């Protein structure tokens, strides 16, 4: 009896322990980027983000000028009770009292440092990366008359609004169409149903890249290029196959009895769809909405092709690409940029998570 309880405890400890370990390993890279986003560029380049945790390091206590001390780096040098060659001093020689003497620099301009091993942390945090990402970079110009002018770059607000204007309709439109289609495939009988459904499943494996050029040509003919409608339609088309398939899987598993009783009561397909199917499939709709929203929010390629490089219609992903500069010299801003662009999808996820649970309950209890 007692040993069984202990076994249970051990088991849950093992499960929780390994879960904790996995989560930790999973989040370490994100943690690293998060910490780096608060560090200045030169700091990121010089030391790792883990230096924000306490570590033991040799810190200089005082300096000795080797020339004043009469040391010749080409010979064996003796100072503070230790002796060694230039190479040995460069690697550092520990004195009997726990200090270390290190030659810093080369033979010409070097200096000797007496160092002590102490606990230290690098806590030079700055909000500068976030300021530049959110508020825009600034560019300095020296005019021919010698005046210096600072020109502000674009900030994020425009890109955020544009991304929202793309992502919300591109999420809602395919869900609406796909829900109709899924209902029809699951509960309506019409000729060619099977064949059409197989076609939709087959479309899942077609990569969207092969459709870019033909669609671009059609858009050009329709004069749709570079408009929001163009990108909504593109995302709708690209997302529809997966949406229909996912929603079909859910809607076809709803209990047949509810639908049949509704039909006996004289409900039309439209009433059944709006009054029964939609409310019951909220969890499926919500989970697909999250998929589609994240995909559209993070999309770079489709937006690039159909919205063009017009700064007026720039999305968050394009802003991120622009912010690093043409040769990538501002790469450190990506750390802050990643968290800024992540904020909204996280918000969407957490706010919709509530409806997962509620939707599940509505389906099972009231069913």
């Amino acid at each position: 009896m007692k040993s069984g309880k202990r076994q249970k405890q051990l088991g849950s400890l093992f499960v929780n322990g390994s879960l904790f370990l996995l989560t930790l390993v999973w989040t370490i890279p994100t943690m690293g980027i998060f910490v780096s986003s608060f560090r200045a560029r030169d700091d990121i380049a010089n030391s790792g983000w883990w230096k924000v945790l306490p570590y033991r390091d040799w810190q200089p206590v005082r300096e000795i000028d080797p020339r004043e001390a009469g040391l010749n780096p080409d010979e064996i040098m003796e100072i503070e009770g230790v002796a060694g060659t230039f190479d040995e001093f460069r690697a550092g020689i520990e004195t009997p009292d726990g200090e270390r003497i290190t030659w810093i620099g080369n033979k010409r301009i070097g200096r000797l440092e007496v160092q002590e091993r102490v606990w230290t942390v690098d806590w030079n945090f700055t909000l500068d990366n976030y300021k530049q990402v959110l508020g825009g970079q600034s560019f300095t110009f020296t005019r021919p008359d010698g005046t210096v002018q600072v020109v502000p770059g674009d900030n994020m607000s425009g890109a955020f609004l544009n991304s929202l204007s793309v992502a919300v309709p591109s999420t809602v439109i395919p869900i609406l169409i796909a829900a109709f289609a899924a209902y029809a495939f699951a509960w309506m009988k019409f000729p060619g149903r099977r064949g059409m459904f197989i076609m939709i499943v087959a479309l899942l494996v077609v990569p969207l890249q092969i459709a870019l050029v033909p669609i671009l040509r059609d858009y050009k003919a329709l004069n749709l290029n570079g408009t929001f409608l163009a990108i909504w339609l593109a995302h709708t088309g690209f997302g529809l196959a997966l949406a229909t398939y996912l929603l079909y899987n859910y809607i076809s598993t709803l209990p047949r009895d509810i639908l049949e009783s509704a039909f006996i009561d004289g409900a039309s397909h439209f009433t059944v769809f709006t009054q029964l199917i939609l409310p019951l499939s909220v969890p499926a709709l919500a989970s697909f909405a999250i998929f589609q929203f994240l995909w559209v929010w993070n999309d770079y390629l489709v937006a690039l092709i159909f919205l063009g490089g017009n700064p007026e219609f720039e999305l968050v992903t394009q802003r991120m690409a622009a912010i690093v500069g043409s040769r990538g010299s501002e790469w450190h801003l990506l750390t802050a940029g990643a968290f800024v662009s992540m904020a909204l999808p996280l918000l969407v996820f957490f706010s919709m998570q509530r409806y997962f649970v509620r939707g599940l309950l509505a389906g099972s209890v009231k069913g």
Partner: protein
Amino acid sequence: MKTTRTIWSIATMILIASVVLAACGPAATPTAAPTEEMPEVGFAVMPGGALERAIKGEFTGTTVTVDGAFEGNDADGVKFAESMKAFEEATGITVNYIGNKEFEGSIAIRVGAGDAPDIVDFPQPGLFAGFVRSGNIVPVTEFISDAWLSQQYNPGWREFNTVDGVEAGVMHRYSGKSLVWYPKAAWDEAGYQIPETWDDLLALTQQIADDGDTAWCIGIESGAATGWPATDWTEDMMLRTTSLENYDAWVAGELPFNSPEVKKAIETWSEIWFNDAYVYGGRSSIVSTFFGDSPGPMFDNPPKCWLHRQANFITSFFPETAKYGVDYDFFYLPPVDPAYGKPFLVAGDLIAMFNDRPEVRALMEYFTTPQSVSGWLEGGGAIAAHQTATRDLYGSDLDWGVSQLVAGATSFRFDGSDLMPGEVGAGSFWEQITSYVAGSVELDAALQEIDATWPK
């Protein structure tokens, strides 16, 4: 049931809001009436051209679309917008920049779909040459006089935009590549001398090694483009160890990579690169070090490496606190064989016109003036290709200094890998030279591999 209704009404509201938001386009700009007199402008104007008419106000209210390889609002985009201000103010023509980083792929789609931009800023002459041959580009000689072009450009620069005898575009801006950067303050303290010859440079490298440091900071990692700094070194050494004719033949594909000339050029830099006492981190770290990070140790106190060969744009990767003339300076990468003079390697952007309209011609004429590069000259990062650029146009001594070095060179050539076909210049050359530096293939095998990828 109530909650779902709320969700849907919220969703609908957001949908409507975003549609309304999207519909709010920019308002039309008012047009000014044209005037007969020619107002004063801050740049030179070719007599009798479209720009002259544009300044009189004939094309006010029109728009010219420009495509290019930088984003419209990154550093280069802001500099471009600054450069266009004088033109827009003088003519009332709006310059609409639509470029982005995927330019090299998207320009072919655009032109193929009949949606060519009016003017294109080409970062690679190879791509430009393709469009010239397919007849998409309107040659500048059709609307800009030869006298004007020879007044604005050194004859050497005009060769870069001449394809099969047709002068199709104009050079705009460039960066100088044959430059060696060094940490000036520590350098002066250590008493090192700027080398004038290749032997001096090797002696200095050895001297720094004897003093206990590694002389060179080298890194060639650059994502998918890893290896390009090594191709730059190869080009610089080609110019210094063999004739210009051989360089041109090599770039054109007539002199194969496995010829003794190319081999010698690569072996010349290998002498430095493959000596662990000369390179910070040793040969093995070269391939894995990001090119932008590689000069970092130069700015440690005291420096861990002392020399870095790179184009002038590298200063944007230097620490923000480092100052030109105090913390760092540059010198000309010395010639190897005095017989070949003082050659200079450059790379830059050229401008070409796709759609022939008078307002587009006017902007093309503006591009032949150094004021069309003013954003870069005042903000740093590139040098005007025009020989009429003067010191006061430059915002810093650094860019002016580089332009004077280029002006003092006996010859200059365009970055060869940018001129080669993409399969080689942006493909096998990078890959094979990286494998060679990493030590996974022998030089002969690498060079043969590159030759094999040259399109027939």
